[in-house]
């Protein structure tokens, strides 16, 4: 190297140009293959991942919103239904109680009516009994007073007139 050949400061040397071209292409391929392709691939993969996870998050949020809306709606419906049920039950109970009361009233009226009839009948029976007893008393009284036999028809007639004179009870 002591007597190394030295080129001119500014010269055009085809060998250097061709070899530099080759070197540049080799360096280009190295950078492309070993750096850019790899890094771009990993960045792309990361971007896809992030995009996907964002999408998943969005989907989940949308689904949650949807579910919440659905549940709110269902809850409202259930509340309405239960209110309706209560209302129906109350109405039914009211109707039933009205019915029961009406029935009871009817029954009571029937009882009162039949009781009235009974009373009437009892009264008649009592009046008849009293009539008979009075007749007996009257006959005994009359026999005692008159001390004579009278015919049964006369007796009957006398009693009737007596009772009539006594008046209706």
């Amino acid at each position: 190297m002591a007597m190394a050949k030295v080129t001119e400061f500014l010269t055009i040397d085809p060998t250097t140009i061709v070899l530099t071209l080759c070197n540049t292409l080799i360096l280009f391929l190295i950078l492309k293959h070993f750096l850019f392709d790899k890094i771009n691939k990993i960045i792309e993969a990361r971007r896809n991942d992030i995009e996907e996870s964002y999408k998943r998050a969005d989907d989940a949020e949308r689904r949650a919103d949807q579910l919440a809306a659905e549940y709110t709606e269902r809850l409202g419906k259930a509340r309405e239904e239960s209110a309706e049920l209560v209302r129906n039950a109350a109405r039914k109970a009211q109707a039933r109680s009205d019915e029961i009361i009406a029935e009871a009233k009817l029954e009571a009226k029937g009882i009162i009516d039949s009781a009235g009839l009974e009373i009437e009948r009892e009264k008649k029976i009592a009046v008849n009994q009293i009539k008979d007893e009075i007749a007996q008393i009257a006959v005994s009284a009359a026999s005692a007073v008159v001390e004579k036999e009278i015919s049964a028809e006369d007796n009957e007639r006398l009693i009737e007139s007596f009772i009539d004179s006594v008046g209706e009870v």
Partner: protein
Amino acid sequence: MDSIGQGPRVVFTIPLFGGLDITETIVIGWLIIAAVLLLCLWLTRDLKKIPEKKRQIIAEAFVNFVNGSVKETMGSRFMKFAPYIATILVYAVLGALVSLLGLRSMTADFNVTLTWALMTFALITYYKIKTNGFGGYLKGFAQPFAVMLPLNLISEVATPLSMAFRMFGNVSGGMVITTLLYGALGALSSALHISFSIGSVVISLGQLFTPAVLSIYFDLFSGCIQAYIFATLTMVYISGAADEE
């Protein structure tokens, strides 16, 4: 110490076609390729969707930076250009930064910047023809008037040449200035008798520290900026060529 204004050394010669001279530029290019290959393999080892390692974050930050620049400057239909732009960036930045290791900057070789500029030029021409058709491409040189033909031709050729010379000029100029400064500081040191020699190694105190500031500008800053400018111009020109009516 290199003599000022010297081109890259020939490292070895392949005895083909009457001897192909392999210069420092090419060997450094191979070193950079090897380093980048190892770096890429290391950075992209077991990548996870949820990053765990710092190196994955660094790799992703770099890829995102280039992807973002390409998307912003060229639009998303040119995303396939991202690795190409990254190649230019990485190659140019590392090619300039090797000077920090005492090697000759790769981009201080006009052949390198010219090669890249020609690649960009080829892409520009390809997209112009693809967009307007071959007839449209030829007609484009006579726009807006036929008189403009020579000017259009010059501007077409000027595009890659200016790109190549801009980068080459900046980096090699920086290299020349740094070399000159070293020489001047060495001379100053021996004039002030603050230069010692231990055996055959000469240590000049004046050469310590002072060049570091300028080296940061010329090697680090200028190298990175030129790489960025070259990459940005490539993006702008190519997307411009594809957008032309």
